[in-house]
């Protein structure tokens, strides 16, 4: 650390970086600390001024804020706004920060008072419906995934340091899944959100014979209605599709739409596969 980094003779600016967490499992931050073999290189590239999970002292003087977690309390809203004011670049780290993550499942309950009593009993915590960072402040960079992949964070940090642009795959998980020559889970009789979910995880779940749950949110041009047609054709219920789409919060609009449809099915008794199939 300390000595100035150069790349092809050009000094590389070492940005001051801070990590923050809101409502989350802190698993994404752990991912960053996890790969010890590259941790030192990471620290050479950025100057970490605040990282509660890894250090005791903190500073308010940072340029890039990596923010993990979703927003579920009033005080979190205020803190996030402060971070936004200080940071030049605000990075949403992981699915909770990007879409609300698993936590936003609680938004599905109509009676939030009941949820509160079940979880906290009489403990006086003012818990709000879960929101993503972008619901409250402007997010400059999103790093998707539950959890994130450290390699991806490292690549993004390298690109920031070298002034290169940050690009995510725009296509869905299927592209990576078939490049890994997996047998499609639909052929094996299991549902999968791969056709609508943004790639970048190298089809982590299908590689392990598990269907995708959409943790990276929607791919560009993703159309869950087309996926629904395929799911229905393969014999999966609307509930199964909705459960999957709901899990990480990346598809809230689509699952709400399907839930409306489900209510109509309750009345007419038939599912329209749609999508022309």
């Amino acid at each position, binding site marked *: 650390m300390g000595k100035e*980094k*150069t*790349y*092809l*003779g050009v000094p*590389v600016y070492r940005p001051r970086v801070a990590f923050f967490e809101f409502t989350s499992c802190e698993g994404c931050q752990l991912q960053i600390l996890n790969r010890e073999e*590259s941790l030192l*290189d*990471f620290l*050479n*590239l950025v100057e970490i001024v605040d990282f509660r999970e890894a250090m005791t002292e903190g500073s308010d003087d940072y340029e890039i804020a990596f923010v993990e977690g979703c927003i579920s309390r009033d005080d979190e809203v205020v803190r996030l706004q402060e971070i936004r004011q200080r940071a030049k670049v605000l990075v949403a780290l992981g699915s909770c920060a990007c879409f609300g993550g698993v936590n936003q499942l609680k938004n599905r309950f109509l009676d939030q008072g009941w949820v509160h009593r079940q979880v906290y009993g009489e403990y006086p915590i003012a818990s709000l419906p879960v929101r993503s960072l972008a619901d409250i402040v402007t997010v400059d960079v999103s790093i998707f995934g539950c959890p994130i992949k450290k390699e991806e964070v*490292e*690549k993004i*940090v*390298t690109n920031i*340091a*070298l002034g*290169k642009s940050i690009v995510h795959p*725009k*296509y*869905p998980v*299927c*592209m990576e899944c*078939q*490049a*890994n*020559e997996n*047998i*499609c889970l*639909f*052929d*094996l*009789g299991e549902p999968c959100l*791969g*056709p*609508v979910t943004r790639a970048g995880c190298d089809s982590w779940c299908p590689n392990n014979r598990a269907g995708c749950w959409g943790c990276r949110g929607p*791919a*560009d*041009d993703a*159309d869950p209605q*087309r*996926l629904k*047609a*395929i799911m229905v054709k393969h014999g999966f219920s609307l509930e199964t599709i909705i459960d999957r789409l709901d899990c990480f919060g990346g598809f809230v609009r689509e699952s709400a739409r399907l839930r409306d449809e489900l209510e109509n099915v309750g009345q007419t008794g038939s599912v329209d596969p749609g*999508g*022309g*199939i």
Partner: protein
Amino acid sequence: MLFKILPKSELAGLFAALSENDIIGPVHKGDNRAGTPLFDFARVTDFDTLRLDFTSTVHSAKRFVLPYRETLSTFRITKDSWEKQVDFNIERPFVLFGLHACDINALNKLDKVLMGSVYPTPYYAAKRRNMFIIGIDCIPLSSCFCRSMGTDTALTGFDLFLTDLGERYFVEIRSAKAFQFLKGLSLSDPADSDHDLYLDKNTAMNAAFVAHVETSDLTKILDLEFESPVWKDWGARCLSCGTCANVCPTCYCYGVEETVALDLSSARKEKQLHSCNLVDFAEVAGGHNFRPESASRLKYRYYHKHRGFVEAFEESLCVGCGRCGRSCLAEINVPDVIASIRHEEMVSDR
């Protein structure tokens, strides 16, 4: 061409003779939910796992000559300079043990683009030139239409071609190398009865075709039907997922990305196969996308395969293996798409 007869029991001997190389062949990968076996190409070290009775493989053998991801070069970055290393990524020659005619023809087509052009691709050529190919006859699936594409017979592009006659193989020997490898085995000349069995096999193959693509005047019809509303219908079904290009033995499009290592001391240039159906295929610097709708992307897939390539090489870039249609979750397949463009009744049952 030399025709010989090889007892089936001798094939393990051929396998052993070739086993100093990397042998790649069809293996059983599992069963689908209906209990139908699924096959794929893989490295084979044990002759008994080789399944020459395979129907088709889910993925083609493309990745052995055209990997989905390949490092093109690596860079060592010093204080103010860099050093480039290039590796064509081939350690040992390959043996492709058990390719159907369609897949042999697919490699022949790739050769035209990747080796026959002004700038041949050394990464491809290095692998392709170090390859020994054994063909095997097949019984088409209901979704196969190689016959329509003229690729149901392989005339070139193999060293040996086996036709299963029950107890023995009818062997076509095309290369001196193949003859060398067969030397120690008990070969005999085909008898009249073997010729009869060979013809029977051929008749059985021909009788099995269900799917069909009418290719007469297809380039012109595609031109005429450029604005056909049918493209919109297919586009509305397409998931823009790229599976069709990944499973296709002849799709070769790719993107290149450079990555600098976290410690800034090295970098790597990597190629990744892409697909014209993906949303960003025609997106250029500055963000403009020439084909933002899935319908136009799907259309261009068909125009490249069945029009552009035909005009350039007088043959189609589709060998009718049917993989894209079998793998497509939206059930989009070549026979149906072409039939719809020609205002014909759709024929295939996937």
